C-alpha cells in the first residue's frame, strides 16, 4: 500500500462521479451524497477531517460539512466507536472510520457487546444505525500488527451485517445502503484496493446489500472470493481458460449474511467449488462457506469443497515470506486441479 500524500485533503474538493472511479473516490462520493441528503449522517475517526482520511475517503468533507459532521477524534478507538453507538441510539447516523481493522480490535466492545446486541436485548426498542468502515488485508510488508483480515471474528457475532465491497461500483452502492440501514453494518475495505480504478455507473440501480455477484461465468468449477482475492481468482480463471477449463468467479460482496442461494445455483451447474480467501485458514470465513454449502448442497457435489487460504501465521515483514503466506494465482490453480477430473 502506498498512502498518497493527502495532508490537507479534507480541505480540497471531494471526488465527483465519472465513468471511471477509484475505490476511494466511490466511497468519498457515497459519503458526500449521504451527508448531503441527511443531516443526521456524520463521520467520526482519526485524521478524517483536515487530513482527509488515511486513504482520502473523507476528502473535502471537512470543508463542506464542518467539524461537527466530520470529526477528527483522538486515538481512542474503543470510546469513539462507542460514541458512535450512543449517537445512533438517539437518531444520529454515524459513520465511524477505524484506520485499519487491526485497531478495530480495540473497539470490539462497542461493536460486539453494544452495537450488535442492543436491538435484541431491548426487545426491539432500540435500533443502531451505525456504520463502521475499516480497511484490512495484507498490504506491503506492514508486518503482523498491520496486516490482519479479521472478518471471521466479526462474522461470528449475531446482529452485525458485514459487507466487503471490492470495486468502485460496489463501494458506492454498499456504503450508501449501509448508511441508510437501521442495523449496524461493518464495511470491510481492502488496503490495496483503494487506488484501483474501475467503471462506474452513477445511475445504475443497486442490487440488494448482501447479494453476491458473478464476475465471470463458467461451467467447470466455482471460485468463491471477496476483496482482492476476486482478482486473484479471476486471473486464475483466465489461465485455466487457456487449458479449456471454465471457472465461474463469484464475488461474495457480503460476509454476513452470505448469498447462499447464488452459491447453490452456481454449484448446481459446476458441481465443484473452491473458496479463495486472504485470511488464515483455521476457523476462517471459508470454513463457514464450505460448511454451509456442504450442508445445503452435498448431493450436487462431484468433489470435496476446498479452501485456498493464507498460512496460519502472523504476517511476516519480509516480503518473500509475506507473499508466501497468502494465496496467489498458482495456489488457486493447483487447488483447482485437485478437484477437477483428471
Amino acid at each position, binding site marked *: 500500500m502506498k498512502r498518497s500524500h493527502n495532508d490537507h485533503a479534507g480541505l480540497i474538493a471531494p471526488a465527483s462521479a465519472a465513468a471511471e472511479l477509484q475505490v476511494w473516490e466511490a466511497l468519498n462520493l457515497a459519503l458526500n451524497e449521504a451527508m448531503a441528503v441527511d443531516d443526521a449522517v456524520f463521520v467520526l475517526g482519526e485524521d478524517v477531517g483536515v487530513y482527509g482520511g488515511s486513504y482520502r475517503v473523507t476528502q473535502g468533507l471537512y470543508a463542506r460539512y464542518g467539524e461537527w459532521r466530520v470529526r477528527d477524534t483522538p486515538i481512542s478507538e474503543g470510546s469513539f466507536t462507542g460514541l458512535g453507538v450512543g449517537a445512533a441510539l438517539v437518531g444520529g447516523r454515524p459513520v465511524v472510520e477505524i484506520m485499519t481493522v487491526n485497531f478495530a480490535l480495540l473497539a470490539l466492545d462497542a461493536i460486539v457487546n453494544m452495537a450488535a446486541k442492543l436491538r435484541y436485548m431491548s426487545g426491539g426498542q432500540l435500533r443502531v444505525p451505525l456504520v463502521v468502515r475499516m480497511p484490512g488485508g495484507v498490504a506491503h510488508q506492514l508486518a503482523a500488527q498491520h496486516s490482519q483480515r479479521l472478518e471471521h471474528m466479526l462474522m461470528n457475532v449475531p446482529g452485525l451485517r458485514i459487507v466487503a465491497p471490492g470495486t468502485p461500483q460496489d463501494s458506492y452502492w454498499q456504503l450508501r445502503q449501509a448508511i441508510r440501514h437501521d442495523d449496524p453494518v461493518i464495511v470491510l475495505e481492502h488496503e490495496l484496493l483503494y487506488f484501483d480504478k474501475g467503471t462506474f455507473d452513477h445511475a445504475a440501480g443497486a442490487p440488494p446489500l448482501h447479494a453476491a455477484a458473478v464476475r465471470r461465468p463458467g461451467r467447470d468449477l466455482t471460485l468463491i472470493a471477496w476483496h482482492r482475492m476476486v482478482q486473484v481468482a479471476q486471473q486464475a480463471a483466465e489461465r485455466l481458460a487457456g487449458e479449456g477449463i471454465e471457472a465461474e468467479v463469484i464475488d461474495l460482496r457480503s460476509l454476513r449474511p452470505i448469498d447462499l442461494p447464488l452459491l447453490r445455483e452456481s454449484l448446481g451447474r459446476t458441481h465443484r467449488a473452491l473458496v479463495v480467501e486472504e485470511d488464515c485458514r483455521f476457523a476462517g470465513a471459508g470454513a463457514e462457506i464450505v460448511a454451509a454449502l456442504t450442508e445445503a448442497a452435498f448431493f450436487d457435489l462431484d468433489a470435496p469443497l476446498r479452501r485456498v487460504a493464507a498460512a*496460519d501465521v502472523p504476517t*511476516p515483514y*519480509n*516480503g*518473500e515470506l509475506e507473499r*508466501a503466506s497468502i494465496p496467489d494465482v498458482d495456489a488457486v490453480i493447483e487447488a483447482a486441479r485437485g478437484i477437477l477430473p483428471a
Partner: protein
Amino acid sequence: MNVADKKRLLREMLFARRFEERCYEAYVERKIGGFLHLYPGEEACALGVLEAARPGQDYVITGYRDHVHAIKCGTDPKKIMAELYGKETGCSRGRGGSMHIFDVEHHFMGGYALVGGPFPLAAGMAKALKMQGSDDIAICFLGDAANNQGTFHETMNMAALWQLPVLFVCENNLYGIGTRIDRSTAVVDQYKRVAAYNIPSAQEDGQDIEKVYKAAKKAVDHVRSGKGPYFLELMTYRYRGHSMSDSNAYRSKDEERMWSNRDPIIMLRDRLIEAGELTKDDFKAMDTEILDEIEDEIIAFAESSPEPRVEDLEKYVFAENDPWVYGGGR
C-alpha cells in the same frame, strides 16, 4: 555529566541522526519496505533518558519509532538495519521490520505498532520485576497522542495503585500523524494528566540532552528507590513526516524553523565548542567516521545478509508444534 560523557552523547545523537537518515535513503531505494517512522529531531529524548538509567539492564518498551531506543539499549545497529532489510540476520529475523525491533538479550522489549499498546505491558513488566525482588525498572516511551487511549488511564491507575517501578516517558512532538495535539487532546500539558492518579511528573525541554538527563535522573531514582511510577514529559519535534508516506504539509514552515533552531545535536555541539572542548573539525571528523561506519559496516552487513527461508514461514508461531492435531502447526 563530564565532558567525555557529553562528547559521547553528542556522538550517539549524531549516529542516531545519520542512521535514521540512511534508513530514509534505503527506503527510497526500496531496500526497506512497510512503514518506517524516523526519529530525527527527537534524539535527546531516548538517549538522554536512557543515559540516566541502566540501558541493557532496565527493561525498555516503546512504539513503532523504535530504532534509537534499541541502539541505546545495546542492540547492534547492524542487526537493526538487517531487520529493516527483512534479513534473517535482523534482530527479529526479518519477521518484524522497522516497527517491531526486539532484542531480549539487551532487555529491549520491543517496538509495537498499535498506539497505546505498550502502556500495560510496561506496568506488567514492572510488576513482575518487583515480585522478583529486582531493582531493575521498566521504562515506557510513547508519543503524546498515545495518552488518549484507554490503556493510558487504566495503566496509570494500576501503576499508582500498586506502586509499580515503571517510568513513563512521553515524547511530546505535538502531533499524532496529522492532528495537532490541541485538536485531539483536552489537556495539552501531558504531565498534568497523571496528577489524577497521584503520579509524580515533570515536563522538560526534550531538545536539550543535558536537561533531559537531569530530569530523567530524578525520575529514574524515584522509580528505582521503590516510590512507584513517574511520568516524564519531554517537549520535542520530529523533523520528518509521521512515516514515509506522510509529506508533512500540515505544519507551518515557521514552526519547523523554530524547532530546527533548537536542534539537540547542534545545541550540544555549540555548547562544547563554546567551552573549548570541541572544534568544528572534531565534529566533522566524528561525522565522517559515523557515515563511514554506517556505509561500510552497517549497510554492507544488511546488504550481504541472507533472506529468511520460505520453508521457515511457520517457525516461531508456537514454542513447539503439535503437528498431529489440526491447527497445531506444521
